[in-house]
């Protein structure tokens, strides 16, 4: 019973919020109405049984609740308009909910609108589209519940007061807006993926949420290869979750991971999704990152990985992508070439991975003294205990070899 109610909640919440937002033109009002409907369900369903069509029951109950609320609270002009639109919505609790247009995609784009602060987009998406409760989101982001509740209230107010539209952007805006949605889902995933210790396990739920949302996006936008690219990337990264940290929470590099800990089913699913994306023949940054992750999973030739990074750099010419490409070039056998690319990098001051990568290439080239300098530079830039242990160990190795 409780399981069924929870599953229904997660499935039907965004659908109902989206439908009611479309009708009422107001996200806050819609959320209140749906919340009330679920409260009623919690009271009645254990007693009377789960209705035949839970989604339609929720929509019908939310509709009726909204009518009551509006009759009580609204000024006349707004009242008449909203009531008229609510009347058009079915009140049949046995109807097939799929007969009502699916507005979840519009809801997702509204929650990810660039006029909202990034953390507001993330919180709103998890609340409205993933259907997570406020305390759950607060726990996952390690912020006090009132802070997160405030963030949500402010975000919803901004949606209403600035006129952020409730719709899937028209074609001419879509190339601009889809990356915003993908970015929010990727942020949700990374927030969970960064969690390594047991105490942070609750945050790992975020990875599952991001994957669930990416799957929903693929269902709703079956012709967008980047949506599939993102889903593939998330699945492939998630497949290595158990292998990427050691017993003491330290980071285990890809090359040193215990491959038996990789989740084979997730890898296979990621590869299938990536195939589907690539079949659309419109490459993009998420597909390329997924292809790189797939290459790592399958032990693809390093020169192929280097080429993929080169292609990724065309889409995202950021210093971090260039750094990764330089390392990939070096791993593909061209140590000097990789080093030259690293030395040409700008805009990564204070980023410990740059001296760490230089140190590693210099060490492989047998230039121990320069490597030692670079290891010391890297050590000066990181506070992370696991990274410091790793760098100090390598520094010891190269200094030992120079003193001979």
């Amino acid at each position, binding site marked *: 019973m409780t399981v069924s109610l929870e599953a229904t909640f997660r499935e039907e919440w965004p659908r109902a919020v989206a439908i009611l937002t479309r009708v009422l033109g107001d996200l806050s009002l819609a959320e209140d109405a749906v919340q009330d409907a679920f409260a009623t369900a919690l009271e009645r369903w254990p007693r009377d049984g789960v209705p035949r069509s839970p989604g339609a029951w929720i929509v019908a109950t939310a509709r009726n609740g909204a009518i009551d609320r509006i009759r009580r609270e609204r000024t006349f002009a707004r009242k008449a308009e909203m009531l008229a639109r609510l009347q058009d919505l079915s009140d049949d609790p046995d109807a097939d909910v799929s007969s009502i247009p699916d507005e979840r995609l519009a809801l997702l784009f509204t929650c990810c*609108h660039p006029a909202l602060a990034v953390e507001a987009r993330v919180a709103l998406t998890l609340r409205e589209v993933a259907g997570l409760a406020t305390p759950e989101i607060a726990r996952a982001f390690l912020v006090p519940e009132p802070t997160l509740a405030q963030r949500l209230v402010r975000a919803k107010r901004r949606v209403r*007061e*600035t*006129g*952020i*539209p409730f719709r899937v952007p028209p074609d001419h*805006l879509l190339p601009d807006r889809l990356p915003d949605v993908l970015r929010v889902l990727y942020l949700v995933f990374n927030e969970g993926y960064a969690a390594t210790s047991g105490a942070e396990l609750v945050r790992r739920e975020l990875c599952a949420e991001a994957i669930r949302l990416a799957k929903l996006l693929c269902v709703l936008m079956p012709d967008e290869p980047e949506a599939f690219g993102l889903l593939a990337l998330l699945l492939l990264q998630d497949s290595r979750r158990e292998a990427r940290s050691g017993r003491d929470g330290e980071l285990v590099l890809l090359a040193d991971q215990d491959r038996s800990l990789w989740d084979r089913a997730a890898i296979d699913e990621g590869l299938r999704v990536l195939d589907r994306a690539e079949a659309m023949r419109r490459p993009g940054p998420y597909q390329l990152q997924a292809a790189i992750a797939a290459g790592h999973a399958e032990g693809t030739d390093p020169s192929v990985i280097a080429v993929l990074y080169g292609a990724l750099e065309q889409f995202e010419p950021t210093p971090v992508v260039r750094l990764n490409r330089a390392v990939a070039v070096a791993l593909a056998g061209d140590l000097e070439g990789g080093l030259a690319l690293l030395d040409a990098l700008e805009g990564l001051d204070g980023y410990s991975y740059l001296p760490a990568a230089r140190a590693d290439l210099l060490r492989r080239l047998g230039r121990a003294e320069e490597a030692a300098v670079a290891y010391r530079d890297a050590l000066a830039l990181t506070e992370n205990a696991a990274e410091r242990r790793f760098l100090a160990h390598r520094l010891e190795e190269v200094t030992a070899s120079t003193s001979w």
Partner: protein
Amino acid sequence: MKYALLVYSDQSSWEGVDEEEAARRRAESMPRWVTLFEEMGKADPSSEGRELVAASEAKVVRMVDGERVVTDGPFAETKEMIGGLFLTDLPDLDEAIRIAALVPAAEYGSLEIRPIVEM
């Protein structure tokens, strides 16, 4: 949704500009104004726009301890001043952003989009 589009620009860029140069600048930006008025008119035929006299001509009024104090403007010491404003009724923020970007001052100044509180 009603929006005020506030046009900010650095008015000092017009200081010491002779008539000929001013006329040339105005002629140069004319096609952009035409596009703006066409698009704004299509989006909301009752849109209004006004240019303001230079901020250096402004008066600032305050009540201090019950006394009326009037000083010469401008009020703020920033370079970019409000040089004009539009009032327009548009479907949503995306449309307001599109229209604001058409204002010529968006190229050399900036546009501030302020939703108007509905009564």
